[in-house]
């Protein structure tokens, strides 16, 4: 305990600040926050759009999915600082489905601003060189056009943070993301060689530094990380999904167009839905069972009676 005293202090003050922030939110919009479904799934019901139409459809799907859980006002307070956290990991173009769809991200940004956010930051801890990755993913430009502040993660500014998990005491996390009023988790549904699928929980790894060694214990680490971060809203991009060769991909043949966006408050349920979208059984994605056992959510997403919508 004495060894960690300084970190504890830092984290406690951060946690105190966060609690104050949450208190404010409860004071102002708490009642509204309880309304709305826990989960919504928007599927494209119209004709299969062409390559150009996918982008416009992604916008509608995202709008509908968010509306389905009660709209962004449920999560964003007036004057809030919001961090939208897509998956911007790889130096790949949107067609290769290695990063979150830029139109989904841009729509989330716009919805946050419309709901009263003061600042919407968009950024991720990339795997490839950040400047190139932000550019080729199309996210930097789309987010900027939607009014977001595109932020590069500074490798010097990660901070050893006491997460007090089951297996891990401390992880190196990015303070700027944690200290925002709201973190909007916007992952893409992707195949992953080791985790078999990368979804909402895996996307939170973008808050971390020194990630490599945690691949030995991904389910444990993801559970500890999710418990600490407690994402209040996740929007799962299933417009284009990567079915093989993930997480980095690169082969257009490995991409499937699913035209689906799901939103919700329960990351475990969303992950279970994402696994299903990929045609995987739940026990093939070990982090889902692990997180359910840790009571972070339910893998039986149907029990939440999600609002399912056909968008066209």
């Amino acid at each position, binding site marked *: 305990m004495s060894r960690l005293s300084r970190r504890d202090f830092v984290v406690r003050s951060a946690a105190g600040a966060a609690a104050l922030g949450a208190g404010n939110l409860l004071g102002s919009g708490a009642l509204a926050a309880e309304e709305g479904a826990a989960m919504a799934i928007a599927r494209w019901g119209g004709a299969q759009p062409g390559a150009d139409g996918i982008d416009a459809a992604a916008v509608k799907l995202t709008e509908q999915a968010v509306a389905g859980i009660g709209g962004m006002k449920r999560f964003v307070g007036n004057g809030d600082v919001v961090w939208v956290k897509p998956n911007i990991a790889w130096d790949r173009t949107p067609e290769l489905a290695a990063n979150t769809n830029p139109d989904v991200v841009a729509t989330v940004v716009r919805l946050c601003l419309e709901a009263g956010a003061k600042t919407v930051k968009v950024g991720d801890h990339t795997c490839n*060189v950040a400047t190139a990755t932000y550019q080729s993913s199309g996210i930097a430009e789309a987010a900027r056009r939607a009014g977001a502040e595109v932020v590069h993660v500074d490798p010097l500014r990660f901070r050893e943070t006491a997460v007090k998990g089951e297996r891990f005491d401390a992880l190196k996390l990015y303070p700027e993301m944690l200290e925002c009023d709201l973190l909007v988790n916007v992952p893409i549904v992707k195949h992953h*060689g080791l985790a078999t699928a990368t979804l909402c929980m895996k996307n939170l790894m973008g808050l971390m530094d020194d990630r490599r060694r945690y691949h030995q214990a991904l389910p444990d680490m993801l559970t500890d990380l999710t418990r600490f971060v407690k994402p209040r809203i996740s929007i799962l991009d299933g417009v284009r999904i990567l079915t093989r*060769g993930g997480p980095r991909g690169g082969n257009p043949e490995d991409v499937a167009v699913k035209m689906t966006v799901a939103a919700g408050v329960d990351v475990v349920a969303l992950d279970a839905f994402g696994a299903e979208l990929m045609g995987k059984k739940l026990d093939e994605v070990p982090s889902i069972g692990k997180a359910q056992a840790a009571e972070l959510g339910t893998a039986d997403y149907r029990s939440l009676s999600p609002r399912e919508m056909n968008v066209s």
Partner: protein
Amino acid sequence: MSRRRRIVTGARVRRLVQLVFLLVFFGWVLLARPVSPAEPHPWFKLGFLLDPLILIFTWVAAHAVPLVLLFSLVVIGVTLVMGRVFCGWVCPLGTIHDVAGRGFDRLQRNPKRRDRWSRWQLTKYFVLVGFLAMAVFGVHWICVFDPLVLFYRTTTTVLLPGAQWAVEESSTAAFHSDPGTVRDWLMAVTEPVYDFTGDHVFVVKQQAFLGAGLIALVFVVLLVLNAYRRRFWCRYLCPLGALLGVFAWRPLLRRAIDKETCNQCDLCAMRCHGAAAAESGDRWKPSECLGCLNCTESCNRDSSRFHLAWPWRKEPTTESVDLSLRAALGAAVGGLIALPLMRLSPQSRGKRFHPLLIRPPGAREEREFLKRCTSCGLCMKVCPTGGLQPAVSEAGLEGLWTPRLVPRLGYCEYDCTLCSQVCPTEAIRPLGVEEKHQTKIGLAAFDTTRCIPYAYGRECMVCEEHCPVPDKAIYFIEAEVVDRDGMTKTVKQPHVDPDLCIGCGVCENKCPYADRPAIRVSSANETRNPDNQPILPGGDIY
């Protein structure tokens, strides 16, 4: 003592111009950064295009030069008219030596100027001629000591990383300090500095270079030599200065003393940058004159003046440096005798290859590469991952400070071709992205005594995750392992496909081991050296 005080003197104008050029050259180094890997700015290599030494030696050694280097003929043209004004007014290394010299003026009680012409100043011409003879046999090494190259390399690997480290580490320390202590007001100072330098000066993440200490040592030694003679480097050693000195043999712009008014006070000779004055200041060696105008400024009687004269007009006070044909031939023979010294390391004789000498994609076959590479460090500066590092011993003496990829420090980004786009001498050929994807620079191999799924039966697969080849040069096979209690379980064990692996090194870079990675890339299979391709393509696994 009725000296006229003039506000605007030629030497003052020259100092101002020097300062501007120094800032421009520093700005030029800062400009070359991997902001947008797709489009390297053509100005990244601008400074080297001013350099006739690189032009001439590359042409002699490799019998070919990129046409843009012909731009440096402008500098030769200027030298034919005005002498070595490039050295005196433009060269950033020269300006740094001036500044160092002024520093020593204050430190040394009796400044040892010795500003008379010394025959030792011929050294630079002998070195130039000797290396020109070696260049015929493909030795390009003198360009490693070209002043612009020296300046660029030192700034890139020593000065800039040092400054960035100091700024960023100190403000990061403040950022990470305890709240409630001095942190708040400390950060009120450090954060704006950090943000400004991060946005406008350094822009990219910190770089660090192996063996930068040696580069720093060379730089410091050259600076300290100013304590013995001002502008020691420029007078005695600089190969570019020697080259320009040859072209400044009889320039149009000449200096002469008005014998009527001169009282031989020697002030002009004492302040001469190039030690161009022989006798008591009334003679003048244009090949040594840097055009600094200190002589006209210091003269109380206005006796030292520059004028124009046709090249065929000889003037009695204008002297050549007396580089006799015999001495030049001797220097050339000396160069040939020294030639084997350049080829002493085993790799320089072909057939054997250093496993750690992983050249960037597009690098020519080793012999051809060394005929062109100046070790300027531009490729290292633009490498977005910081993986390109100066070779210290891996490429032999001839390949000192030439670029090699150290995957542990930074990998070769799959879609990036920056280093090949910026190379001023095309030692690294310009590659398109498609061609780059097909270019192998090495081959990865697992160390199964360390690799986590092999050695400890646990999951990992970070290397497979990062492998950029669309069909994955790293694949895994599920294998049964037995733990110490005799229980079996399956883990995914990674393998390398030698046909697909391009040696980019991202696997080695991302391997969880922070000391010696469990997958390492060696130069084997590199496209550029057919003799270093042990694995035949397209074979079946046995």
